[in-house]
């Protein structure tokens, strides 16, 4: 695909319409005192309009065939994300967020970041979100509370979010419309690698070291590998090398951070429990 799209720059009208409809949609969808079924339906409709408007503004709807998987997972991510923030029940919010995670994971897989895609599921869906659900269910077993049925300043926040999205879309659209600035141009080495990988996929210099262990040729579960890029056949190995090579210190720091968070969490919780047991002992 041509990296520089030939369509005109995003029309300001379209963008403004998208922003307005997104703001209206968010406002209609967010929990409020004056909710009706009709308003929520209108909100959904407007939301769809707004998202398609943004997509059109982003000018990336040219090729459905190759991007179908991407569109699917991205759609799942975005719609679930919208549902996450507008659903009344926090449990449903969490479920929708899990769906978002699935979508994001899909997006990451499409982008060729296998490890991160799966790690997102493992870490977020498997651990973090389960803990959230756990707490939610413990703290709020009935599922919905009065404060879940109202929002804080929905109109202003929706407008702010929509305007921010409009700005981001504008800049993203301009990014693709314009010649990539010098800072954004591909490094020459990467270009060379890309060119080489198109000609002879198995001779990727970067993956040669691991070729002995790499029995399978480059057939990935993610169908969308534009350009037959095999640079990530050993994605995990590369990422690991990067992590434990250049960023070793940062990894250590992150490990310490995890440890500190763990100790801190346990300290706060166990202090509460200590009082509990004290109370009991006193009662005996």
């Amino acid at each position, binding site marked *: 695909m041509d990296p520089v799209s030939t369509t005109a720059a995003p029309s300001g009208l379209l963008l403004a319409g998208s922003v307005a409809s997104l703001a209206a949609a968010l406002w209609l969808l967010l929990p409020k005192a004056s909710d009706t079924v009709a308003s929520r339906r209108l909100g959904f409709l407007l939301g769809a309009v707004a998202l398609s408007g943004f997509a059109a503004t982003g000018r990336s709807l040219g090729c459905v065939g190759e991007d179908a998987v991407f569109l699917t997972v991205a759609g799942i991510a975005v719609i679930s994300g*919208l549902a996450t*923030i507008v659903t009344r029940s926090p449990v449903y919010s969490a479920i929708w967020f899990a769906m978002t995670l699935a979508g994001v994971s899909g997006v990451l897989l499409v982008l*060729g970041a296998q490890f*991160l895609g799966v790690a997102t599921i493992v870490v977020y869906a498997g651990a973090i979100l389960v803990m959230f659900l756990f707490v*939610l269910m413990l703290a709020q077993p009935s599922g919905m509370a009065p404060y879940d049925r109202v929002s*804080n300043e929905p109109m202003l926040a*929706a407008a702010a979010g929509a305007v*921010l*999205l409009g700005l981001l879309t504008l800049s*993203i659209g301009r990014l693709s419309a314009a010649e990539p600035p010098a800072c954004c141009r591909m490094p020459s080495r990467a270009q060379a690698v890309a060119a080489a990988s198109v000609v002879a996929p198995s001779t990727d210099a970067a993956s040669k070291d691991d070729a002995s262990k790499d029995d399978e040729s480059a057939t990935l579960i993610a169908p969308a590998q534009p350009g037959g890029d095999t640079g990530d056949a050993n994605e995990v190995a590369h990422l690991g090398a990067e992590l434990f090579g250049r960023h070793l210190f940062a990894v250590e720091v992150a490990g310490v951070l995890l440890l500190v968070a763990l100790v801190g969490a346990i300290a706060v919780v166990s202090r509460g429990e200590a009082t509990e047991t004290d109370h009991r002992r006193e009662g005996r």
Partner: protein
Amino acid sequence: MIPATMLTNALLVGAVLFCLGLVGILTRRNLIVMFLSAELMLQGVSVTLVAWSRYHGDWGGQVLVVFVLTVAACEAAVALVFVLQAFARTGRLDASAWQALREESLPRVIDHELPADDRVVPTWPHLSPAGVLPEGDDSRSLERDHV
């Protein structure tokens, strides 16, 4: 390496997720939903980082996402503990229950207009009692009233 269209696609997805998370954290009052929204923003950032990383053929973005995951895990652990403590104090997961930082003479912000809970409360199945009922308050139900 990914083409520029894929880049913009992914960036757009990231931007949408980020903004949705932003709106969520600003509007929703349930502490946990607020955290979910924050995580949603992190997801948007992660998508953006990975997209740029793949576009440039540079691993830095993905490394950063790994750290984002790490920090998110830490944040979740600590935040959940605090949410639980907050819940223990107020009995609610309401962010608006914490207003102590307000101006001294200002009154507490109270929701005067709450939407009616329009869900149908189902009638529960009742079993005929067997054995001796313990002495106690009949009005106090051990069941949850609804989901």
